[in-house]
């Protein structure tokens, strides 16, 4: 992709924020989409960073990436906040586990604070977060507010306030929703959109309807009951059903939507992202 074309695709997809959280129901391909956006940003001459929460996020493909594991983030925070070498022992002895079980959101907050630090470091033009599945993302993003309700003072209160500011900053931060052309994911995406924009006041940039099956028309020239007729009927119903669902997304969400094709036999997010990147011309965009 040409640099200028990549810039255009990127700006249509996400605009110009510094932090993009990519989320969706489990299994909709959000890791592939996060990686895809990173590839496009890179082609556009930008320096992206991909943030993963999962050790199994897939091997790197030239995109710089960092894996944030809550325990490691907690350790780093303690080490840099006056505990020094004692931090490791605290973690091992279970004290930290006990405290963070009583205050479960503390881990979430520290992870978000770490992301904030990456954004503010100005080393990267775009920080892309391969965020947890939408249900968990909502509780992750609610944690700072929850914690500031119990801590009106001190370092936790300060961190919470800073993170909330970043998440609500319409210029800096945005969410990309990924969904599939199926009833339940579409329904859930609508609910997540409402929750993000109202209770969390976070900007939603776009919605990607992933894995659209190829269009197949229903034929009337096949012998009834034959294998060919049954296969055609199955493929046509599936394609039609997907179109109805993709249409529902456009109807319900007042944001740009994109329909991306189904890429066959891509077993890793890196493969799927590369295939989608190579097929930019087959995407359908709806402003």
């Amino acid at each position, binding site marked *: 992709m040409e640099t200028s074309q990549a810039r255009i695709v990127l700006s249509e997809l996400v605009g110009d924020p510094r932090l993009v959280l990519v989320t969706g129901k489990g299994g909709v391909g959000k890791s592939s989409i996060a990686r895809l956006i990173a590839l496009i940003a890179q082609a556009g001459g930008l320096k992206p960073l991909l943030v993963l929460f999962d050790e199994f996020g897939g091997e790197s493909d030239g995109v710089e990436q960092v894996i944030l594991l809550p325990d490691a983030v907690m350790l780093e925070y303690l080490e840099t906040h*006056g505990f020094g070498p004692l931090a490791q022992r605290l973690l091992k002895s279970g004290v930290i586990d006990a405290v963070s079980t009583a205050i479960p959101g503390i881990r979430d907050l520290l992870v978000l604070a770490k992301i904030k630090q990456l954004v503010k470091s100005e080393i990267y033009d775009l920080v892309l977060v391969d965020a947890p599945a939408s249900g968990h993302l909502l509780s992750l993003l609610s944690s700072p507010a*929850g914690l500031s309700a119990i801590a009106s003072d001190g370092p936790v209160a300060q961190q919470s306030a800073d993170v909330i500011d970043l998440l609500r900053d319409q210029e800096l931060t945005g969410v990309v929703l990924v969904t599939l052309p199926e009833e339940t994911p579409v329904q859930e995406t609508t609910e997540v959109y409402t929750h993000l924009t109202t209770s969390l006041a976070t900007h939603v940039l776009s919605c990607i309807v992933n894995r659209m099956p190829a269009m197949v028309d229903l034929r009337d020239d096949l012998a009834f009951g034959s294998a060919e007729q049954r296969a055609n009927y199955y493929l046509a119903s599936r394609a039609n059903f997907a179109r109805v669902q993709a249409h529902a997304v456009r109807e319900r969400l007042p944001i740009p939507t994109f329909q991306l094709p189904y890429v066959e036999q891509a077993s890793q997010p890196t493969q799927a992202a590369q295939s989608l990147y190579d097929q930019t011309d087959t995407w359908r965009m709806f402003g």
Partner: protein
Amino acid sequence: MNLLDAIGTKETLVCIGPGGVGKTTSAAAVGLMLANTGRKVCVLTIDPARRLASALGLDRVDNEPVLASEDLPNYWVAMLDPKQTFDAMIRRYSSSSQQEDEIIANPVYRNLVTRLSGTQEYMAFERLWELRESQRFDTIIVDTPPAQAAIDFLHAPSRLAGFLDNRIFKFMLKPPPLYLRPIAMATRGLIKQIASVVGAEVVNDTMSFFQAFSGIEDGFRERALMTSELLASQATSYLLVSSPASDALAAGSRMVGLLRGIGHQVDSVLVNRMTPTYAAYPRDPGAPPEAKEDLMRLTQMRTHQQLVIDGWGKELGLEGWYYLEDLATDVSNLAALAEVAAAMEQCTLVPFQVAE
């Protein structure tokens, strides 16, 4: 061997699997299949998304089990409400209404229940235990949240028990015996240091939260340990639900491995949404090339899926797998669900073809 034989007499069936594979629909269909055999079944969904209600075509499903339809006297459904379950538990174990009030008014408790992640998992097993103990059902089917959250769910009982056992909190709650005083002093110093990082208010609230919990924790811990045992016992069976996609199977295998690590056995795997095969039907010799190609493409996809699944056979450590074919639409009412349940009844074990 068929799926019904494999799981038909279990008291608790836990459905696990990655997201987007039709886990909730499968749990609901397994429940309906068992209810049709005359067992009294409750499907309990832990998933905060209202997928169970939408699969059944219901407006909502609540914490209290309800009949999915008046025509099906054995088929009950419920959706976990963590706050209701938590409050009920506090009421049950509190020694006085004053203690109950103190806990419910504590900011840490309110935060724990209403806003923060983690509560879901704690309350899920409490609810499972309550339903089990009520002896209202022959089988309880638990539809867990996807992947990692499900593992958290299964770890929750032992984690909570370990947490309440934590000596640090014991020292904070009760004056320690004389010979342990130096350790207790050191602990206080540590608590002070933690307070300097997270803020004194948080630590104070947390400590009063534990003080308010004093006495309750024994009942709570006992319950947690019993649930842990229940989940690891022969009366409980795990069903891994997956799609034929390799990443879903990979995530599923990881979950199976993690469960084995804590002594829980996954007995069956159900692969949903297999591309349908039409090999048994007569061919149409006059079909145009595009139609022939479409059929061939489906056949190739199916063959590929079977290879991928066989590739995970060793990792899963199971004899074989069950499958359901893709429906091309969603299941969003009881009639459609009944069709899935009927197809499920026909599921027979397909042995893994493990390459030498």
